[in-house]
């Protein structure tokens, strides 16, 4: 059963709710909301809607993977800023800076892709590994960061929402981690798959379940946050 349409809707809910939080608020939620929106454009929409123009063009595919990497970087930046706020109570900063810097990074990546030869399958695979590595390690760092944020704000109205964010990043870790495992050990090659069928199947199932749970938990978390912060 193809659940990519549902996943797009759930990530869209996450992006919209976090965008709603960022309206009239400090820039902290802006980074988080930009991150969630970028996942949609970089990762989910191309899978859910393979008929979109540009699908199949290697440069567009490479750009999608890079945008997905930028998404986790921007999102982590948002949680880092929230952690700083929860420790120092400082909320300085400019929202437009977040938008401009993200756009500049995307633009620079686009230029980088265009001035280099068209990426072949190997190059795309390497870019995918780099992206997944970022996702895996930043998910672990975010879990620890969000745990610390939770300890600082646990008795505030938003407190429990951060426990839900930990669950989101655990699912993301399983989703991206299993994908990275398959890529690093090349378990998707027929010869390796035959040699280690159990490993491949467990990783594939973890990947699918992690992906689905990440979407469900992220949508659920933001709906829960909207309820906590209404």
């Amino acid at each position, binding site marked *: 059963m193809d659940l990519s349409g549902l996943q797009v809707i759930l990530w869209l809910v996450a992006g919209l709710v976090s965008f709603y939080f960022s309206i009239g608020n*400090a820039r902290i939620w802006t980074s988080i909301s930009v991150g969630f929106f970028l996942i949609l454009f970089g990762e989910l929409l191309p899978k859910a809607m393979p008929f979109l123009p540009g699908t199949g063009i290697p440069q567009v595919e490479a750009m999608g993977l890079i945008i997905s990497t930028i998404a986790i970087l921007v999102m982590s930046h948002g949680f880092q800023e929230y952690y700083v706020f929860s420790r120092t109570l400082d*909320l300085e900063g400019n929202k437009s800076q977040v938008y401009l810097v993200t756009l500049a990074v995307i633009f620079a990546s686009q230029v980088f892709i265009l001035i280099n030869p068209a990426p072949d399958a190997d190059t795309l695979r390497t870019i995918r590994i780099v992206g997944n590595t970022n996702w895996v390690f930043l998910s672990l760092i975010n879990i620890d960061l969000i745990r610390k944020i939770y300890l600082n704000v646990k008795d*505030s*109205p938003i407190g429990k929402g951060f426990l839900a964010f930990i669950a989101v990043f655990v699912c993301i870790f399983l989703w991206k981690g299993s994908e990275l495992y398959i890529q690093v050990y090349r378990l998707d090659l027929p010869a390796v798959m035959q040699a280690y069928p159990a490993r491949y199947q467990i990783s594939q199932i973890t990947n699918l379940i992690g992906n689905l749970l990440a979407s469900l938990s992220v949508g659920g978390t933001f709906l829960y946050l909207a309820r906590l912060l209404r």
Partner: protein
Amino acid sequence: MVLLPKGNPVKENANPGKINLPGALEKLQAGKFSGYLRFDFPTATGVIIFEQGCLISSLLDDGRERLIAYDAIAAIFEQSLEGQGRLDVYRLSAELALSVHALLHGDLLYKGQELKLIDIKLLLTRLKDLAITGCLRIYTGDRVALIFYREGNPLGFFHDGSTAIETTADTSMSVARLPGAKIDVLTTKGVGEGMLADLLSSADLPALWRRILEARRPAPEPVASPAPSVEEPEAVDPAVREAESRDELLAAWREIAVRHLGKIGGSLVEKEFEKNLSGALDTAALNVFYERMGKAARLVAGHGKVSALLEEMGRSAQEKL
């Protein structure tokens, strides 16, 4: 005159008369603060040193006499409430806080020697021969650098902006090169970590603060006529009254914010109060406070909760002011 280099500034140029000092000291204790608070009054200088949240040392020097421990703290409280003081708070490493304590209570071997007029090499050789533990204090009008020695061997440098004993001499030497630079040689009896009592846990500073506040209230004038037609209001020092209403308002706001936002709410109130209401408590300052408080609160609570919080705080301010 107490000459100490500035560490990493935490708070500068605050008016200690407008701060609940026992509360502030307790916060530094809870935050395991290491560093010192410097109070500059018109005729005296006070220093309170913390090492990992323990108030290990206090001193008040007016040029003629030196008070230490509780006497110094009481005098610092008293002079702060005069409203003419300035408070700077600097963070240091725990090791350096101990060294500064040892330095303040050490003996002065040579004082105010013009650097140009002394043979520094000979002085250093003498420090080595005598196996002196202490420090060289090099200073000009506004800059100070310290070079610590243990048993005649140099340990490191401490100058404005450093938080720990450093091994590079650049800034210290640049002070020495300034015209009119002078040098003091101080000897100390080394103090080990954990050897000093925490003055905060062995004294009731809030009670001391309240006693001083009470003592500052002028006694009621003796009544000459047995039956005055109109009862005169009790004369209260305006500075004392303002400090009291500030404390009351802060305590009430803190309680409201903790109820609505949890622990972080109380910290937000303290931070924004200190930032925006250290001057006059007028409408403009209060509006800025409410705006900033609302903005920060929206990061941990929803619109409805923040509006209720600000409304309750506004009502409380009207009652107290």
